[in-house]
């Protein structure tokens, strides 16, 4: 078993899927010949030909709209939006069409499509290369939303997403592409190749959608996180010395509520973290669910640590990013509550 970066793991998932199923096609802006601006599709055009992996015009609505038509035909398009910040032109096709086609046609037409996109900040990308729009998808019935936090999951979840018969939004935390990130930009980056969590099995395997993973067991407080924030939460637990249980949700919808419930009922406390803006972020849903399902076990209010309710600024990136210190303060606050 080799260690792979998250980019390599994603490429591997695409390769494995294209190899197994001739209906899997991959396309997007700069995705074909060049292999994508983050190189996730490198080599695929060479291996599978321009009919299976190709460049598209710069038209997110066109990319998704065409993919929906292809999926209705019987293909399994796995498309790339260059940055999650650029998905909005395709938002109508995703929410009005992909998400509802099975329902409105009573299953005559379906959309087994995956929309991959790099998400999150931490690379000085400013307001148009840093966003985390997951809550805009979790509100839409008919979609599934996935956010991996490491190469192993990225591969297994992406294969599962491609094999899923419904549209899946697959958000790739770009800050994790090359190595884990604990929220401390001043520390040198450790590549996945130097991290045991970079182990990725060869060939086909699947991580089922809808299953959370407990990354750190603990008794004092439950932290709900996904993507980059899983690593930040682990760092915050280590730095505060608080015995936090860190749950990596992996799939936001469908959500693994039983795992969350069991943990919060055990710890009696809960902190929710994400990078997206606070108001109406996915953390609101998590907090609402936790207080509803664990009300009588809660010893403190569920706190949310998130990006501020502003556009993602360039220079103030690290003031904006909900780093380990801020998460740590919230852990302390719920412990003292």
């Amino acid at each position, binding site marked *: 078993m080799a260690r792979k970066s998250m980019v390599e793991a994603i490429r591997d998932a695409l390769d494995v899927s294209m190899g197994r199923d001739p209906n899997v096609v991959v396309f997007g802006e700069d995705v074909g010949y060049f292999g994508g601006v983050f190189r996730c599709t490198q080599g695929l055009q060479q291996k599978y030909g321009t009919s299976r992996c190709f460049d598209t*015009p710069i038209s997110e*609505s066109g990319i998704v709209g065409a993919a929906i038509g292809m999926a*209705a035909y019987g293909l399994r398009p796995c498309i790339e939006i260059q940055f999650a910040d650029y998905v909005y032109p395709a938002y*109508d096709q995703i929410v009005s*069409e992909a998400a509802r086609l*099975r329902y409105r046609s009573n299953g005559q037409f379906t959309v087994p499509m995956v929309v991959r996109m790099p998400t999150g900040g931490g690379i000085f990308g400013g307001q148009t290369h840093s966003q985390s729009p997951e809550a805009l998808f979790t509100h839409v019935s008919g979609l599934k939303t996935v956010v991996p936090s490491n190469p192993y999951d990225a591969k297994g979840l992406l294969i599962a997403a491609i094999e899923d018969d*419904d549209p899946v939004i697959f958000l790739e935390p770009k800050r994790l592409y090359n190595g884990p990130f604990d929220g401390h930009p001043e520390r040198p980056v450790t590549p996945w190749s130097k991290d045991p969590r970079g182990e990725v099995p060869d060939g086909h395997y699947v991580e089922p959608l809808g299953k959370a993973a407990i990354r750190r067991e603990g008794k004092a407080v439950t932290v709900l996180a996904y993507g980059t924030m899983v690593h930040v939460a682990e760092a915050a637990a280590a730095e505060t010395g608080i015995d936090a249980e860190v749950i990596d949700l992996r799939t936001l919808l469908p959500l693994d*509520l039983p795992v969350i419930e069991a943990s919060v009922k055990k710890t009696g406390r809960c902190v929710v973290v994400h990078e997206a803006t606070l108001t109406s972020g996915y953390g609101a849903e998590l907090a609402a669910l936790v207080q509803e399902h664990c009300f009588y076990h809660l010893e403190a209010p569920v706190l949310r640590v998130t990006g501020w309710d502003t556009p993602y600024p360039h220079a103030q990136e690290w003031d904006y990013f909900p780093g380990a210190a801020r998460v740590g303060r919230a852990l302390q606050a719920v412990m003292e509550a």
Partner: protein
Amino acid sequence: MPERKPLSFHVPEPAVRPGGTPDFSDVTVPRAGSVRRPEVEADPESIRDLAYSIIRVLNRESEAVGPWAGLLTDDELQQGLRDMMTLRAFDARMQMAQRQGKTSFYMQHTGEEAVSCAFQRALDPGDMNFPTYRQAGLLIASGYPMVDMMCQIYSNERDPLKGRQLPIMYSSREHGFFSISGNLATQFIQAVGWAMASAIKRDTRIAAGWIGDGSTAESDFHAALVFASTYKAPVVLNIVNNQWAISTFQGIARGGSGTFAARGHGFGIPSLRVDGNDYLAVHAVAKWAVERAHRGLGPTLVEYVTYRVGAHSTSDDPSGYRPKDESDAWPLGDPVIRLKNHLIQRGVWSEARHAQREAEIMAEVIAAQKQAETHGTLHSGPKPSARDMFEGVYAVMPPHLRRQRQQAGY
């Protein structure tokens, strides 16, 4: 710095408004038979003129003339007439059913029957339409059962779409009719994607996209043209220019452009304009475009020049924005009458047979309606279950939906 005069704001206006005398003098109608018929391989640049004229086959004497004539047998023409008459009778009954409160909504095709009825007959089995809400003729001409259409309209227990969709938003994969979306233009690019998929798989199926004049302004129209042009997708892109988009005349979407068909030129897509009220012309042009797609020659853009005789929908009253008698002044006539007269002119039809056929068809439609109503109408009789509401959101119902269904008591 030069002295500048103040600018002024320009908003296009239709020639007449309610109270005025209908005026279509800006619609230039070329003589039937006068527009050439190029080879399907023709270089798009060499046939730009076809986007600025109107291809017509039936002349004032009800003869089929010119290079686009001669494709259909008498039987096929009679079948075409039957399709259009069926659609018209269907419209009449369903419009009335809506007025009677048997459903919430209906949209008629009056005046536009030739477009979808004739187009469908140019397709091969397996080809796929991506229609708007005003192409039920595609279903009728492809033999989809009227009862099923009505059950959908009634949202009753036999509604193939389980009551989930607004009336007339049919879907039939089997009959090459993609699920209608209430959102305009979205399906135009999906048609291109479907056609791309067929080419990717080296299959032989083609797609047909449909859009209204008003909806060409939507962004997905552009996406469709860009993708169709780049990947030479085997798709026919149809614009039904029925002069109106609810209360808005086509000049607001068309702007300074000569015609909607001309929008294809910037993409190197062969673009044709055809008399949408001429069954023979529609069919001939459709055949030409379908042939191009099947032969791997790429997309074709077709503008059907027609007129929406009725209201936009049962929620609309056109007397608020256009002269009541405007449709009488429409220079391209009525598609049913024109085909009827052609058949009479050919000596294979008569007023009497027509009246008899009309009665037969109406009886069929009424019979279908009776049958459909035994399965319920929107507000009475058997209906889809509330349980159905929770099904089909996903292939497998996720836990949160199961929880909600339980909570709802089903």
